[in-house]
């Protein structure tokens, strides 16, 4: 009962910040001096990819814990985070593509960062497919945990790709080793970006709490079907 109330509060807060984020991102923030209005896609693009990184970090932690302790709840956590991480990575690629067309002149290019992000997406689509393709559930959980750990290792490569290779993608605007965010982004844009980031993170945790509840309930149903009694 307490969990349900907490989830509703989280959902309400997410909705409030989403509306605020839309207002700040589309109306309050000024257009960029070079890119004009299309730069407003940044208010979705950066929060989406950072949320995807966070999600795959949760997959990494959940997978390590599952391989160590073999507790079902860690596997459910990793599986839930992977599903939502794939959604946010897919959306990041779509947003980037729509932003790329007016700024670079192409919908897609085999740039190092774009390619590595596409690989991350495919690794975790593979993770989700493994779960449904391997009939033995425990074996599927172990195999996907190993893939989840390996897949997470792609994220540092994505982040550093703009430094290691000559790429079309610009260097990071926020997570830079040489500058603080407010030294690199105008305060009015940084406020809009921060509000959108909070909105997407709140929405992410709301979705994750629902997905976890789904995973736990499915597990309970399986147990009841197996033993045919009340747990």
């Amino acid at each position, binding site marked *: 009962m307490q969990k349900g109330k907490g989830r509703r509060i989280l959902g309400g807060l997410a909705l409030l910040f989403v509306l605020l984020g839309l207002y700040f991102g*589309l109306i309050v923030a000024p257009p960029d001096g070079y890119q*004009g209005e299309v730069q407003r896609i940044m208010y979705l693009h950066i929060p989406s990819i950072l949320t995807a990184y966070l999600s795959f970090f949760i997959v990494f932690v959940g997978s390590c814990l599952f391989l160590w302790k073999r507790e079902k709840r860690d596997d459910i956590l990793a599986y839930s985070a992977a599903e939502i991480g794939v*959604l946010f990575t897919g*959306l990041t690629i779509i947003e980037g593509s*729509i*932003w790329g*067309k007016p700024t670079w002149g192409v919908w897609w290019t085999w740039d190092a960062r774009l390619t590595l992000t596409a690989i991350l997406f495919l690794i975790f689509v593979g993770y989700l497919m493994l779960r449904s393709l391997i009939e033995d559930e425990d074996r599927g959980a172990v195999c996907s945990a190993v893939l989840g750990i390996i897949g997470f290792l792609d994220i540092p490569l994505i982040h550093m790709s703009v430094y290691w290779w000559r790429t079309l993608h610009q260097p990071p605007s926020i997570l830079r080793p040489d500058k603080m965010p407010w030294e690199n982004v105008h305060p009015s844009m940084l406020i809009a970006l921060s509000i959108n980031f909070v909105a997407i993170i709140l929405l992410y945790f709301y979705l994750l709490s629902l997905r976890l509840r789904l995973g736990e309930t499915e597990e309970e*149903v399986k147990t009841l079907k197996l033993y045919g009694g009340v747990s």
Partner: protein
Amino acid sequence: MSPWGFVFLAYGIVWAALLLYLFRLKRRLHKVEVELSDLRSSGDLKRDA
């Protein structure tokens, strides 16, 4: 397409996809909760009998 066209295309796709996922997730959760409640009540009936 105008610059605003690209912006609305991106925002439209993202929020439509997130809302679709949210509603689908809620529907999946509702379905499995109904199944759990049915299993529990049938278990109670068996125990009472």
